């Protein structure tokens, strides 16, 4: 099964929940937010949300910035 995480293609070996994806990617769960196919998924729904083929996932965190911080192309939000 293939999904897209932050614009990058990822192969998943079997049924995977959002909570498992965060663990596999070794991300700090407490400090991120997730959007699945353009809708925010609440934290308490991560473990019951199973990914489907071609799902578009955005995982974000917070960075320093006041207004329009300097950003690189890869960091650009939603530039899929």
């Amino acid at each position, binding site marked *: 099964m293939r999904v897209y995480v932050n614009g990058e293609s990822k192969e998943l070996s079997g049924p995977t929940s959002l909570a498992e994806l965060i663990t596999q990617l070794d991300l700090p769960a407490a400090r991120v937010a997730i*959007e699945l196919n353009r809708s925010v998924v609440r934290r308490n729904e991560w473990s019951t949300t199973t990914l489907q083929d071609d799902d578009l996932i955005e995982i974000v*965190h917070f*960075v*320093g910035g006041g*207004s329009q911080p300097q950003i690189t192309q890869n*960091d650009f939000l939603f530039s899929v």
Partner: protein
Amino acid sequence: MSTAITAKAKESFIIAGREFTSRLIIGTGKYRSYEEMRSAHSASGAGMVTVAVRRVPLDRSSESFLDYLDPALQILPNTAGCYSAEDAVRTARLAREALQTDLVKLEVIGDQTTLFPDNEQTLEAARVLVKEGFVVLPYFNDDLIMAKKLLDAGCAAIMPLAAPIGSGLGVQNPANLRIMREQLPGATIIVDAGVGTASDAAVAMELGADAVLMNTAIAEAQDPAKMATAMKLAIQAGRLAYMAGRMPKRLYASASSPLQGVIK
């Protein structure tokens, strides 16, 4: 006693029922190190700092930036980097989910060279976010009509720019800010962007702004902590001058000493 209470009430700055003792809001970008940022934050006395939302890098482990912020600070997530109402709304929703705050500094940019706001997209996003229960603080051009529309849309405060983001030019159109203050006496006005040094912040406050938000002026100073202190004092001085009510400007001299009794 009541006078003291009134004076105190006037000196606190309230957004959507939340009280802040400082009228300075600062950014978290462009600092040379986290330590430098922390000492500047501490010197500024600010109670609120703004942070940006970005994709998590998947190829490297990243430190959690939030861990470098004083936990006592109110975090104001922003939608910097968004060029459409839709992206700004998505970003605000993600920020709310991650931070459990309904505050958002709404920013929809219209042009990469000037970073001027897209007022039309900003208004559209503001309407959606207010409906969803956000406390919306929009960055916009210093335009009275736009200010009225944003307030009508239910924004908690309005954030006109002083000059282009990161330019350090200071208040470029003092008349617009003064008109906005006079025409919208009940509105919370936060001057956002364009301040370069302490006198710029004082001018914004003297014109009647309720607060000033800045990032680059502090972060790009040679000594950010020292500049943060200067900004703190300038904001206080500007606020006091505004509250004091300045003398009118005159074209000609007006003697300060009595005209009678001069020796002949």
